[in-house]
């Protein structure tokens, strides 16, 4: 606890907006990882194939159809 808390401070803690510069690097990182994850669920073995074969495509087949991604 650094600064002493004044008694007249409001007792309800209201968080302020997170600065954009603090969010941006996380956006890049999470977006990259999400794209990789969504690629394997949504497109691998259909429009493009990184690992070869149809195993990944067939494994997530139902999720891909039901999440409304183009499948075949």
């Amino acid at each position, binding site marked *: 606890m650094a600064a002493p808390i004044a008694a007249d*401070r409001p007792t309800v803690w209201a968080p302020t907006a997170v600065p954009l510069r603090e969010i941006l690097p996380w956006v890049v990182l999470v977006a990259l990882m999400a794209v990789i994850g*969504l690629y394997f669920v949504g497109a691998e073995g259909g*429009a493009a194939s990184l690992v070869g074969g149809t195993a990944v495509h067939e494994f*997530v*087949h*139902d999720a891909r159809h039901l*999440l409304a991604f*183009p499948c075949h």
Partner: protein
Amino acid sequence: MVRTYILRGLLAGVIAAAAAFGFARVVGEPQVERAVAREAAAAHQRDDPSEPAVVSRDVQTTVGLATGLVVAGAALGGLFSLAFAVVYRRFADAGARGTALAVAGAACIAVFVVPFLKYPANPPAVGNPATIGHRTALYFTLLAFSLVSLVISVACQRRLVARLSAWNASLIAAATYLALVAAAYVILPGVDEVAAGYPASLLWRFRVAGAGIQCVLWVTIGLAFGTLTERSERGAARSRSDLISAKG
């Protein structure tokens, strides 16, 4: 703070995937099953040698479905948490729960509804395998365009709110988004590969099931994330007021 949001978003995404899995099992799988049975019957009639299944239907409808939904849920939940972090306390003075649900609604429209209405989902065996590359590219192009349009419209709202009321600024922002999406709908080519004679009721039920799964996913992400955030803020407020009363 951002770290907490991301972890919470991943958790909300996994919770949402569990809810979507339940919905998909009950509402979605019967339609997939019907489409697969139809495909198999057609192949049998043509005397096609059936391809050996790489992954059995039992795995596809359970572990495969769950894995796909959890990966998608966590990815979308993580991205959602960052959108929440950008919006929260920056626009309206809404609480965490209200903001989370609003962001989830906007995300559902931009990420799912807009691409879906132009390029609706198809059950297995509908669609020409030769055009999958083209169709996938169109789908993700529209998705990316929709997201960029959403960012533009939110930036518009932010600019206009100083001069107009929040209500009018939001209306203009929404109209901007709709206009951009409408332009994309007109410019991008349509796709219709449903064979003549394909059962319309099966196609409709399959598409409604897909829309339901996405709605369950997004609403649950919004509700779970909002509830968890609200609760942790209340906890933080309580421990602060305890601290103040202890000092005073």
